[in-house]
């Protein structure tokens, strides 16, 4: 294929190259330098499909179905791990964003209620955990997800994160049509940016592949303490960058209950948050609040 199909746009058509150097200065409330947002991802893994990730491959390889051990490994996060993470966030006084599959709202009702009770921001994350390019009807998937969240929360979600950050050429158009203000899939900057779509503008709020437990623990296979060490290094550098140009940066910290909610990893999440929380340069927000601040 030489270009995107009709109705879609190339990345370069959506956003012009714009270096961070020399941009207008932005100032966060309270003199903070870094808007930190914590995104907790809640997924439902369909036991009839290939598991999105695996911790253990079958003897001699392959991907036999059903895949009970890897389904159960993920399910642990929702039965046990989430509740462990919740205590840490409660103790730290962090209001997080919940990126949630539409189907997970009913499948894991107690999780959705716990997040809603605490005023977390709900972000659409696909109806089920599968590549958006494999979803037969993308607008319908987005509509179902939006309806599931709106039905539960009473308000429509403003933000969207593709499952595994996947998009088709037309995803931004579909999101604007569905009333979304921002997307998180474009991990290309330390500040919010605006994407052009054929239906009007769509913001992108910085998300991360770097401080993300899927990339770090499941793909790169780092030991658990690397999550803490990397988050601290990331925060310190962003704070120094923002201080140097008297402006602001956004830092995302991404976690999944089945990964960081394992007992042996939890302390490193707590220690990373404790470091950030102790800094006068940090202010905790979520995607919608970051976007409102950015737009003044």
């Amino acid at each position: 294929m030489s270009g995107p199909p009709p109705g879609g746009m190339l990345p370069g058509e959506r956003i012009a190259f714009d270096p961070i150097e020399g941009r207008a200065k932005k100032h966060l409330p309270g003199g903070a330098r870094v808007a930190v947002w914590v995104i907790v991802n809640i997924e439902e893994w369909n036991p009839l499909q290939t598991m999105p990730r695996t911790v253990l491959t079958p003897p001699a390889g392959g991907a036999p179905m059903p895949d009970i051990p890897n389904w159960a490994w993920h399910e642990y996060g929702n039965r046990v791990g989430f509740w462990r993470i919740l205590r840490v966030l409660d103790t730290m006084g962090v209001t997080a964003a919940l990126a949630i599959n539409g189907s997970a709202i009913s499948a894991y009702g107690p999780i959705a209620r716990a997040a809603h009770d605490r005023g977390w921001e709900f972000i659409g994350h696909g109806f089920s955990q599968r590549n958006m390019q494999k979803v037969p009807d993308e607008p319908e998937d987005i509509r179902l997800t939006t309806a599931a969240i709106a039905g539960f929360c009473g308000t429509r979600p403003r933000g969207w994160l593709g499952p595994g950050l996947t998009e088709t050429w037309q995803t931004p158009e579909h999101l604007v049509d569905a009333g979304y203000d921002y997307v998180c899939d474009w991990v290309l900057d330390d500040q919010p940016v605006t994407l052009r779509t054929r239906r009007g503008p769509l913001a992108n709020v910085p998300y991360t592949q770097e401080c993300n437990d899927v990339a770090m623990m499941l793909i790169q296979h780092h030991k658990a303490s690397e999550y803490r060490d990397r988050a601290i290094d990331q925060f310190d550098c962003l704070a120094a960058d923002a201080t140097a140009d008297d402006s602001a940066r956004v830092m995302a910290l991404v976690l999944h209950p089945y990964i960081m909610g394992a007992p042996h990893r939890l302390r490193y999440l707590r220690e990373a948050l404790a470091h950030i929380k102790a800094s006068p340069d940090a202010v905790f927000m979520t995607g919608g609040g970051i976007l409102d601040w950015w737009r003044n």
Partner: protein
Amino acid sequence: MLPTERQEYSAIVDRPPLALPGGNKIIFWSIVNLEVWDISRPMARQVIPAPTGQVLLPDVPNWSWHEYGMRVGVWRFFDLYKRLGLRPTLSINARVCLDYERVAAEARDAGWEFMGHAYEQMPIHKVDDQRGMIHRSMDLLQSFTGKRPVGWLGPGLTQTYETPELLAEAGVKYIGDWVYDDEPTVIRTGKGPLVTLPYSVELNDIPMMIVQHHESAYWKTRVMDQFKRLHQEASDRPKIIAVAIHPYISGQPHRIRYLEEIYQEVAGYDGVLHWNGEQIYDWYNSIARVHP
């Protein structure tokens, strides 16, 4: 049945806590896995892929790597558990009783719990006659030890949608394949209920050393981080920590010290019960009354 048809989603915070006898806090469940890797098939795991990365048969280097565990590594385990006075669970391919009778007899005579682990090491999806394989395995273990196993772990934890029915039919009471909780749970089968015990793919030397390629010393760090967290949570509700090892991995000279040091360090904590799977099952069944 689909997993979601066998049980309803349950958040751990919504359940009443269980209670351990004597006010104990945490159960430490040690599981040793013994397998048969048939030289005529692709090896279950590889330490060294062939040049060009293709799977070649016979795969002598990787067969030998695993065989080291049966010839040498497992004897480091026997020595360790004898010194500690512990009787772990032995997850055992039934064919080990024939091909490595010396090893199986050592575990039997040391009083280890035998847990069914298929006939030989291959995904259960590729077994032609699953029911026959399960009965053959259970019968062989029963005749070797004089007692029918109460527990089962799928090879690589694999199951098909029919496996729980076939296991219940063969007399299995608990399984380790459902690593989805910190506590035992009950699942439905068409042949009566099964108990799930919280085995581990996190504290398991295959994912950690062979899949994720961590350094040997990280084994101890991760297990102790897990232990400390669960021990702390156990002041609210008892917890179970499972540690799964294989002689060809943790029985290596460069790794064994980290396993030994874990037991030394755990000995400094209060309220720890070293129980095998059958003991955990008996305790849970006495509370939950799953089986008569």
